[in-house]
């Protein structure tokens, strides 16, 4: 059996909070690990009563859901934390937001309601907005049409162990072209699959099917994450908790 430290076990989790936060401006270059470090420290500065795992190296209880890739901005990142005493979600949101660097902004926080299911199972797709500077909207439109007409578009993605073929087409549920002269904007709904299809992969796929090669690197922003319904809409993953809490107003306390 593993050795256990002396002393009492850490206090248990009494409440789970679910948060939506952003990755804006220059902080789009933060990796998932960078964000995790920043969040853990901000939780300590904000004095959120975090629950910790037991053992010699206690870790705060935080679970991340579907992190945006390095270089991609996001308006909709999600995580769940466990706390050791009941907290007012809005007070936690404000305190944590104030402790985080500008660009990582906490925009929503709800208490997880029992019986509504896990956060992870409420997310199976992302809406991406991809800016292609130097590309005309019409050019993008015809490239997208060519892309959507295919069943499979294989692109090579650089992995740790070299190039690997990935199908960028099957995961795309919908895609539209817009923007203004000199800067096309693609809005694309991508299903969560393994291996994940990233915004860069979709841009690479347009080069593969229509030889569309933007003169400068594209800029992607994740605008939403959630469950994709039959109408092509992505639902708010915090919705079920919000709905349940309005029916049964829980006990509130300040941080």
């Amino acid at each position, binding site marked *: 059996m593993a050795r256990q430290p002396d002393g009492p076990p850490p206090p248990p989790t009494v409440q789970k909070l679910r948060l939506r936060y952003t990755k804006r*401006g*220059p*902080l789009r*270059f*933060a*990796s998932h*690990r*960078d*964000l995790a*470090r*920043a969040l*853990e*420290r*901000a*939780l*300590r*500065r904000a*004095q959120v009563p975090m629950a*910790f795992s037991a053992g*010699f*190296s*206690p870790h705060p209880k935080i679970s991340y859901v579907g992190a945006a890739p*390095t*270089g991609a901005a996001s308006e909709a990142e999600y995580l769940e934390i466990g706390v050791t005493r009941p907290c007012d979600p809005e007070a936690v949101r404000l305190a944590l937001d104030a*402790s985080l*660097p*500008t*660009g990582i902004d906490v925009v929503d926080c709800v208490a997880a309601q029992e019986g509504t299911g896990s956060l992870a199972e409420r997310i199976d797709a992302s809406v991406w907005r991809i800016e292609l500077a130097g590309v005309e909207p019409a050019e993008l439109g015809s490239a997208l049409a060519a892309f959507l007409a295919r069943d499979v578009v294989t692109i090579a993605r650089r992995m740790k162990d070299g190039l690997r073929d990935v199908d960028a087409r099957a995961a795309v549920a919908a895609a539209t072209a817009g923007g203004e002269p000199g800067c096309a904007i693609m809005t694309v709904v991508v299903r969560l699959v393994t291996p994940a299809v990233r915004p860069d992969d979709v841009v690479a796929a347009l080069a593969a099917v229509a030889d569309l090669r933007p003169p*400068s*690197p594209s*800029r992607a922003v994740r605008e939403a994450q959630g469950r994709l319904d039959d109408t092509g809409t992505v639902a708010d993953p915090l919705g079920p908790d919000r709905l349940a809490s309005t029916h049964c107003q829980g006990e509130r306390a300040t*941080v």
Partner: protein
Amino acid sequence: MTGETLYPRLEPLLAQVQKPIQYVGGELNAQVKPWEDVPVHWALMYPDAYEVGLPNQGLMILYEVLNERPDALAERTYAVWPDLAGLMREAGVGQFTVDSHRAVADFDLLGVSFATELGYTNLLEALDLAGVPLHAVDRDETHPVVVAGGHAAFNPEPVADFVDCAVLGDGEQAVGDITDVVKAWKEQGRPGGRVELLARLARVDGVYVPRFYAVSYGPDGTIAAVTRTRDDVPAKVGKRTVMDLDEWPYPKTPLVPLAESVHERMSVEIFRGCTRGCRFCQAGMITRPVRERTITGIGSMVDQGLKATGYQEVGLLSLSSADHSEIGQLAKELADRYEGSNTGLSLPSTRVDAFNVTLANELSRNGRRSGLTFAPEGGSERIRRVINKTVSKEDLVRTVTTAYANGWTQVKLYFMCGLPTETDEDVLEIAELATEVIRAGREASGRKDIRCTVSIGGFVPKPHTPFQWAAQASAETIDHRLRVLRAAINADRRIGRSIGMRYHDGKPGVIEGLLSRGDRRVGRVIERVWRDGGKFDGWSEHFSYDRWTAAAAEELAAFGVDLDWYTTRERTEHEVLPWDHLDSGLDKEWLWEDWQEALDEEEVSDCRWTPCYDCGVCPTNGTEIQIGPTGRSLLPLTVVGS
């Protein structure tokens, strides 16, 4: 316009490089001040990768001290990895600061902190990327004044052609004086141009301006004389010493990066200076005397720093932290304060002393109990007398065994190899020691899974130490001794499997030796290496020994000297050393006596507890030892929100 942000041009490049987060700034506690609001602009550089440079205490301190002034701003810049450097050259984007992404070339001053000489090629790369002429003589009044600092600045001669000045000693007050000089000169309309500015700087205490000193050489290649070329600059430049550290509680709000760095913790410097007298240790020699922060001063820095950063661990930093006069009480009272808060406290490597195990136990009460690190430095009792770090073999084994018995399962031991007078036998004793430690440790702890890691590096003689005259061991000697040591450790597998060995080969140490004790002629070697593509010399994947040896052979031949002349050659008593006109306060005659005593295996005591042995520092600089105990204690903190 100067001071304009380069970010819009940099951003598309960042999408194409590794770890772009290191270039965007926006760290917690970073500061951005409007350019036009202040007359004096400092760019502060740590000449290595961001992950190494960001946690550097010296740079963080100066960043805060300067930004607190209403008439100055300071921004940071780090060495750019080759992937981004290539893209920057293509796109015409210059070396930039991470805070506001301003061009380094726009600043009034570029301060570069050299903790190690292996950063020299990165300085040249940064100057070139910035569009600043490589050689100080080619710069005009529109270019930043390049100021070197840090421990390597005690012999800046190898980079004398590339820097405009060097600051010796503590920077807190010196940067203020330099700021005053630059501000006045600018306000007066830059009279006399760059030369006049440098002449004014040369009159600031602790500032050395190499161009005002001429070096001549004798027929045997040694320095004949170093003479000043103007009589309004000092013949000998002294060092700066900050007294009363409690008055300088920096960094108050340490920087917290988003990117991963080499130190994922906050550091509080609990004292500066060390008088243990370890003869190999340049830091201990050039930072004298010992100046302690008080227990209450440390307590409030820990408290404020944790609140400002959210770090989970605090390192109590100094050259020999267990020697603080209030360390026992400090450890206990800090541990009491942070009981139940998952806050870890740690000491850097310590001397081998049973008391240090007690300390470590106390400090690890609330956090993670990782490993313990001791630094015996020398393998045999004899060599430990030579380097003046005396501890008997019995005490060493007993101390490490106590650590295992107290539940520590990983002990790391630091050693050096290639010390003066060293033989294979001295190094082989490390294997015996590690074997005994494991054997006794298994018995004392009743466990088989304890580990001992032997970490060993080649010794490099440094200026301003008693070993400044010593012959450096060749790379072949170092590699040979590491080989026989490894074989000895592996000889008994039942014990050897519990012993790890970490080491570096001897080659980088030889180049560090060339740069440490080099003179101005070595500057040509550095430039040649950089022109041939050398940079990031502290990284084994970038360091090329062959490139250095080829450049040294070609550039030094004309002077009748070579790589060996600078490294494996023992110096004689009256040889003019390249740094003799730079004064750490240490009396050269005392250093020579100490060198002779080292050869005789004689020890010297610590002047904190025994009478002064006249090293020269305090009378030269008008300083004194500042130690406690103060008799004060730490009160419990009031918990916020309760």
